[in-house]
C-alpha cells in the first residue's frame, strides 16, 4: 500500500495510474457504456465523425459504431496484454528459478533454450504460432507470452545466482529446509521486485503485439480489437482515414499510460533504495 502512495507522489506515476484506471473502468463497464454487440450494424455506413450525436466517432464500412468498437476493444487490449505478461513472467520466473537454483547441466540446457527464444524475432514466432494453431484469444495470449518470457527468465536467473550465496540462504540450508522450500520461500520473494519492474514493459509490448497481430488479420475474428479496426479502416483509408486513426489513438494512449506507470515505479524504487 505504501508503494502505491509513493507512486502517486511522482507526476508520471499519477498520470499513468489515472489513464490506466480510466481504461480499466471503461473495459469493465463496456456493456453498460455501449450496450449490445459492438460488431452489429448500428447505422448508415461510413458516417463521418462528429456529425451524428448517436455515433460520435462515426461508423465504418458496414455501419458499425466506431465508438462502441473502441470501448469494447479496450477489453481485448487490456485483457490480452495483462494475461500475456502474467504468463510470460510466470514462465520466466519458473525457468529462471529452476536454472539458477539447480545449476549444472540443467541450467546449461535451460539457458540454451532461453538463448534460442531470444534470437528468434518474437513477432515472427507469434505470427507462426497463431497461424499454425488458429486464432483465438488464449492462443494469441500464449503466442505473445512465448516470445516474451526469455527476458524475465534471464533476469530471474541472474537474481537467483546472486541471492543463492547470501548468508540467510546458507542459514536456511543449515537448519535443514528442503531445497524446494528454500527456493520458494527464501529466494523467490527476494528475486521478485526487479522482475516485476520489467512487467510494465512486457504489458506494453504485449498490447502492441496483439494489435499488430490482429492488424495482420490473425486476431480472433469474433472479437472487436483495435488492431482489426485499424485494418478494417485501412480499406477506405483514402476517403475516411478517421476509421484507422481513432483506434490508433486509443492504442497510443493505453501504451503511454503503461509506460508512465512504469516510469513512476522506477522512480519510487530508485527513491526507496537511496
Amino acid at each position: 500500500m505504501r508503494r502505491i502512495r509513493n507512486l502517486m507522489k511522482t507526476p508520471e506515476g499519477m498520470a499513468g495510474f489515472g489513464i490506466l484506471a480510466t481504461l480499466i473502468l471503461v473495459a469493465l463497464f463496456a456493456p453498460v457504456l455501449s450496450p449490445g454487440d459492438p460488431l452489429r450494424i448500428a447505422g448508415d455506413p461510413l458516417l463521418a465523425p462528429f456529425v451524428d450525436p448517436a455515433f460520435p466517432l462515426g461508423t465504418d464500412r458496414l455501419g458499425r459504431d466506431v465508438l462502441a468498437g473502441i470501448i469494447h476493444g479496450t477489453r481485448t487490449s487490456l485483457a490480452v496484454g495483462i494475461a500475456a505478461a502474467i504468463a510470460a513472467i510466470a514462465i520466466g520466473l519458473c525457468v529462471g528459478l529452476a536454472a539458477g537454483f539447480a545449476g549444472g547441466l540443467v541450467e546449461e540446457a535451460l539457458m540454451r533454450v532461453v538463448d534460442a527464444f531470444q534470437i528468434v524475432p518474437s513477432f515472427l514466432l507469434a505470427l507462426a504460432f497463431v497461424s499454425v494453431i488458429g486464432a483465438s484469444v488464449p492462443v494469441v495470449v500464449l503466442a505473445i507470452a512465448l516470445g516474451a518470457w526469455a527476458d524475465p527468465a534471464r533476469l530471474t536467473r541472474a537474481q537467483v545466482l546472486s541471492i543463492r550465496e547470501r548468508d540467510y540462504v546458507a542459514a536456511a540450508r543449515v537448519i535443514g529446509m528442503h531445497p524446494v522450500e528454500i527456493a520458494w520461500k527464501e529466494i523467490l520473494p527476494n528475486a521478485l521486485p526487479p522482475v516485476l519492474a520489467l512487467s510494465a514493459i512486457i504489458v506494453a509490448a504485449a498490447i502492441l503485439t496483439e494489435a499488430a497481430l490482429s492488424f495482420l488479420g490473425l486476431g480472433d475474428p469474433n472479437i472487436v480489437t483495435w488492431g482489426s479496426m485499424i485494418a478494417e479502416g485501412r480499406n477506405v483509408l483514402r476517403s475516411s482515414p478517421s476509421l484507422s486513426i481513432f483506434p490508433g489513438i486509443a492504442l497510443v494512449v493505453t501504451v503511454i499510460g503503461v509506460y508512465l506507470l512504469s516510469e513512476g515505479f522506477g522512480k519510487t524504487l530508485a527513491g526507496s533504495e537511496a
Partner: protein
Amino acid sequence: MLLIVIVLTFLLLESASGDAVDAYLLSIGGGDATVAQSLRQAYGLDQSMLARLWLYISSLSRLDLGWSVAFDRPVLLLVLERLPNTLLLMGSATALAFGLGSALGIVAGAKPESASDRVLSTVSLILYAIPSFWLGLVLSIVFAVQLRWLPTSGIETIASGKTGLTRAADIASHLVLPVGALALIYTALFLRVMRAGMADVWALDFVLFARSKGLSRSRIVLRHVARNALLPLVTMLGLQSAAMLGGSVVIESIFAVPGFGRLAQEAVSGRDAPLLMGIILVSAVLVICINLVIDLLYAALDPRVGASEPAA
C-alpha cells in the same frame, strides 16, 4: 543453439492441424484422396515425424532449406531474393534511428532536467508508445495520399525501365515512408537510452575531474560523457535487432515492400510450413550475425573488453 531453434520450430509447425497439401487442395478447389496421397508422398509428408526431422536437419547441413509448397520454388532462393530489400529497410532505419537518437540524446542529456531535456523526453515517450504499423498508416495518409509527395507502396516503380542513379533515387523515394515509420520508434528508444546513460555518467568522478581541469563544457559533453554513454546504446542495437526484424514484417505489409517480412505473411496465408521454417531459421541466423558484429564493434569501442573474452 541453432539446433534448438530448428527442433522447436519443427515441433511447432508439426502441431498444426492440416498441412500444405490440404491448403493446396483447397486452393485448387478440392481433389480426391489418391491425389492427396501421391502429393504427400512426393513431399515426404507421409513419413513419421522423427524421420522427417532427421531428414530436415541433414538437408539443412547441405544448405538446402527445402521446397516451398505455395511458391513451388526452393525456399533458400525465395529468402535470398527477398532478403536484400529487408536488409536495406532495416539498415537505413537503424542508421537513421541510431544517428538521430544518439544526437538528440546528447542534446537532452547535456543538461539533465533542462527545458530541452523535458521536451525531448516527453516527445520520445509518446513516440515510443506509437505502434509502428499505425504510424506507417498515418504517414502514408499525410505524405502519400494528402500531399502526394511520396509513393504509397512498393519498392520501386513497376516496369519503369529506370537504371543506375535514377533507379536508386526511385527506390529511395519508395523507402522514405517505411524507413521513417520503422525508425521513429527506435529513435525514441535510442534517445531514452542515451539520455539515461549520460545522466549516469555525469555523476562519475572523471567528469568532475575533467571539469576541475577547466575543460570547456562542450568538450566534456562530447568527449567524456557522450562517448561513455554510447556503449549501452550499442548493446541496445544488438538486443533490438530481433525486434526490428519482427517490426519490419508489419511495415512491409503496409507499404507492400516485397521483403522478408512480407514473405513471412505470404507463407502464413499459404500454410507453407517449409517456407515459414526457413524464414524463422534465416532470421535467427541474421540476428546471431548482427550480434557478432556488435560484439566486435563493442571490443573496438571499449578497450576494457579484451580479446580474451569469448564473444557471446
